[in-house]
């Protein structure tokens, strides 16, 4: 793979880099999958170069990431697909500013995330990233509306909590506490909480992992709606290959490496999915 890492990369430069990279990826894909033309994409939001991550678990070193080069482009819907232990969560955590790589660099637009300290990363998460977790992680002592308000209280240009909840079809349960909501409903509140700040990226880690098919599809539908209506760059982690059919691009991972990027010619809507 061509090394394109630079210490400082301008946005316009990144667009060019992106095109090269895409071409490169397509070349690889052409060997593994059917080549498809790339969809119309915006500027580069993330650019990772040579990212490795090694955890020291006692006496053993665990290599979670073994040299990742990738981009996320504005407005796209990406699925990171892979079995458990493939490194996809580690990658997402690094992109989301929850973790730092052992080596390599990560750029968020024109800033190098790897240079941020803890306070800088906190501000980055606060202002730019929306997280959705497998286990919802709602605050049990706050109602749906208040869980969302928790974010809108501290964000720079938030939407109204009710508006965010309307996006995920939760208008009828604004004043319910988490204990009074089903898993799917809780996850939709979590999505509303993630998007209420109008984040630049929405990062979802196995958002349907704890849900049955039916509610899972409702949740994916909500995520897809956010992506298409708000244009929020969205990355979803899953080990469920069916979900990949919703994506603009599918990045497949195993053993800490990206072993394939697939551009979907036609995306399917969440309601069309079945597993």
């Amino acid at each position, binding site marked *: 793979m061509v090394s394109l890492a630079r210490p400082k990369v301008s946005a316009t430069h990144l667009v060019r880099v992106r095109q090269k990279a895409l071409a490169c990826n397509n070349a690889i894909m052409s060997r593994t999958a059917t080549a498809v033309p790339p969809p119309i994409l915006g500027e580069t939001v993330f650019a990772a170069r040579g990212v490795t991550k090694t955890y020291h678990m006692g006496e053993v070193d665990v290599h979670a990431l073994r040299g990742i080069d990738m981009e996320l482009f504005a407005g796209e819907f990406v699925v990171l697909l892979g079995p458990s232990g493939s490194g996809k*969560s580690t990658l997402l*955590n690094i992109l*989301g500013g*929850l*973790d730092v790589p052992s080596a390599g660099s990560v750029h968020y637009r024109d800033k190098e995330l790897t240079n941020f300290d803890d*306070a800088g990363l*906190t*501000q980055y*998460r*606060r*202002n730019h*990233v*929306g*997280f959705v*977790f*497998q*286990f919802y*992680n709602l*605050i*049990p*002592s*706050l109602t749906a509306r*208040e869980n969302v*308000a*928790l*974010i809108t*209280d*501290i*964000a720079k240009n938030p939407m109204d909590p009710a508006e965010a909840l309307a996006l995920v079809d939760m208008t009828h349960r604004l004043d319910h*506490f*988490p*204990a*009074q909501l089903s898993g799917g409903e809780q996850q939709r509140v979590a999505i509303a*909480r*993630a998007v209420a*700040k109008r984040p630049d990226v929405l990062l979802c*880690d196995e958002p349907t992992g*704890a849900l049955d098919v039916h509610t899972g599809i409702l949740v994916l539908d909500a995520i897809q709606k956010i992506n298409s209506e708000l244009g929020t760059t969205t990355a979803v982690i899953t080990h469920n290959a069916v979900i990949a059919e919703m994506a603009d691009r599918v990045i497949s991972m195993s053993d800490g490496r990206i072993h394939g990027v697939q551009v979907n010619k036609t995306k399917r809507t969440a309601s069309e999915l079945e597993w």
Partner: protein
Amino acid sequence: MLTSLDRKLVRDLTQRLGQVTMIALVVSAGVATFINSRTMLFSLENTRAAFYERHNFAHVFATLKRAPDALAERLAEIPGVQRLETRIVEAVNLDVPGLDQPAVGQIISLPVNRRPLVNQIYLRRGRWLAPGRSDEVLVIEKFVQENKLDLGDKVTAIINGRRKDLQIVGVVLSPEFVFQMKPGDMVPDAKHFGVFWMDHEALSMAFDMEGAFNHAAATLMRGASEADVIQRFDQLIDPYGGTGAYGRRDQLSHLLLESDIQGLRSTGLIAPTIFLGVAAFLLNVVLARLLSLQRDQIAALKAFGYSNFAIGWHYLKFVLLIVIVGSILGSFMGARLGYIFTEMIARVYQYPELLIQVRPSVIASAVSVAGGASILGALGAVVRAVRVPPAEAMRPEPPSSYGPTILERLGFGRFLPAVARMVLRHLERRPVKTSVSILAIGLSIGIVVVGNFIEDAIDFVLHTQFHRVQQYDMAVTSVEPLSTDVAYELANMPGVMQAQPMRTVSTRIRSGHRTRRVGLTGLPTGGDLQRLIDHHGSVYPMPPGGLVVSRKLADVLRIEVGDVLRVEVLEDKRPVLELPVVSLLDDVQGLNAYISLDELNRAMMQGPRASGVLLTVDPAKRTEVYHALKQIPKLAGVTVKDNAIESFKNTLAKNLGEMKKINLFFAIVIAVGVVYNGAQISLSERSRELATLRVIGFTRGEISAILLGELGTMTLIAIPFGIIMGYWFSAFLALFMDQEVFRFPLIIERSTFGMAVSVVLAASVVSGLIVRRELDHLDLIAVLKSRE
């Protein structure tokens, strides 16, 4: 051999070392205060009982003017009397080498060639009196110590108007003077009040009491009625100027010892109860949390075939280990404190030896009470946890249910930021736990308040007594009532600025069937040197027209202002008076009654007489006045106000200071124990929540606000409660100490509240900060992957 389950236990304990240590400390405080208080009580009781027993301390005492020795036989024949001794007791003025101020003493006669039958003395050093030597005395130990005297030294006494040198040949102790205090004093002042024993013959000659006695004391047979004996005594001594026989409970030294012991008996278990209650509560919450964290482990153990009992026992062992550690620590602390405190309290007593013994039975009961309370605290949580069927326990606990708080239901919700709602809802969801936590934090405030209250009250008492009531510098008392001219003579002495006569007679005051022995004091109407104080704290001079009595005396006799009392004077012509009560006195010591001096003298059918004179003295000429007073015959005693204040500072104030430190320490243990554990549990319960907030962009400061907000809210709510509790504790203590001997006014300085609140706030802040540091190590990633 440790089983695997035991290994798990050890690891569970070490993982929570901070919390476990705090709880063990609270347990140890409970065990220590229990052992300390019981050890003090039993040691003081035993020491006293042994001393009384070995030295035949009398049960009944009688003072009279002068009775022939023949009366002794008749007294001894009173049914119920076991042993009787008659003797001569006289008050003398002393001139002690090295002591500028006048001192007074009591000289007691000792039978020649035999030991007295009752109230035997203990010879600490030196030798007994040689027969026939009229210049030898045995002297009570404290007086010798305080004045740095030694065997062979001489003290000059003014005996019957003549100066006489007395040589100290022995240093002694007496069951009658374990607490050596001059009647009428507020604090013991052993330096200026000595007790001497002298050959009976020599003393009777010196006081012209040959063939006569003026004091009798008797021990009673087992089962004899004290009241009957006293009544018969009175019948026999009345014609000889008897001032009424009395039992031990009116004997000054015994009375003071008893009031100390009674205090320990009644209030001694309050502190241990508080500590063990708090410990039980802490064990309950910590264990409940542990069990909820280990819900799946319990399920797994059950699935493997462990019985409910085995699992329950496993968790109870967790509690018992903490109790054992706390008990061992507490036992050592308690035993040590028991020694220190008993010795400290006994500093004012005089015993041949202190029989301090930490009884194994006391330790055993302390430990079993601690164990019992802790198991009670833990049992509920354990039973709840092991009862859950394994399949259900394998599933995660359902999310906690929350609802709007009462504030929000009342419509104040919109004023609350989200963080405040989280904190309040969390607190309201577990009302019992929250209330007990608040109560416990409040308790620690209360403990500090009550510890300082005693000091505040004593400061107030001293200030009132020495600066507002007593306007004199010295009180001079005479052996016999003298003409009030004495006051004028004294007033003309160089250095004396003001002099005011007074007179005290012993009386028995009756209202219906209730009766008390009271010294009735006559003060000149409008006299300014000794003033009276009412319950508003305002002072006023003696009014005319009747009696002013202690509020406590009015309580005891169940009378009010306006009621008429029957006052039986026990001196001279023994008139019986009917006098109205014109005002009540909020004094702090003893039962007192005052009347105008003129009325008293009229009632006694005598001209102007005084038994004492109050003086104010030019500070520059004090020594001259002291010197002059020493030369005046017929003066029974001089009390110098400054000596009393100084003596107080050297004894009681020291003890109070020590106790205050211990109180403070224990209050901090409780406050830190409760707040630290609360914070730890909060952190454990909410780590996932807090980590989520961190992930979605909250700063460390912001999530700390949530965690510490909870503690802060509880602490803030606890403050007013703590202040109220402190006030009520103090009121309760004041009520308890509202005795005939001594009373505490309910005075709590604002600074006391301020200090209590600051101590507890500081303890909370420190505990909060310790836990806050752990927030920095929250694993943000683990929380995303885990379910609770």
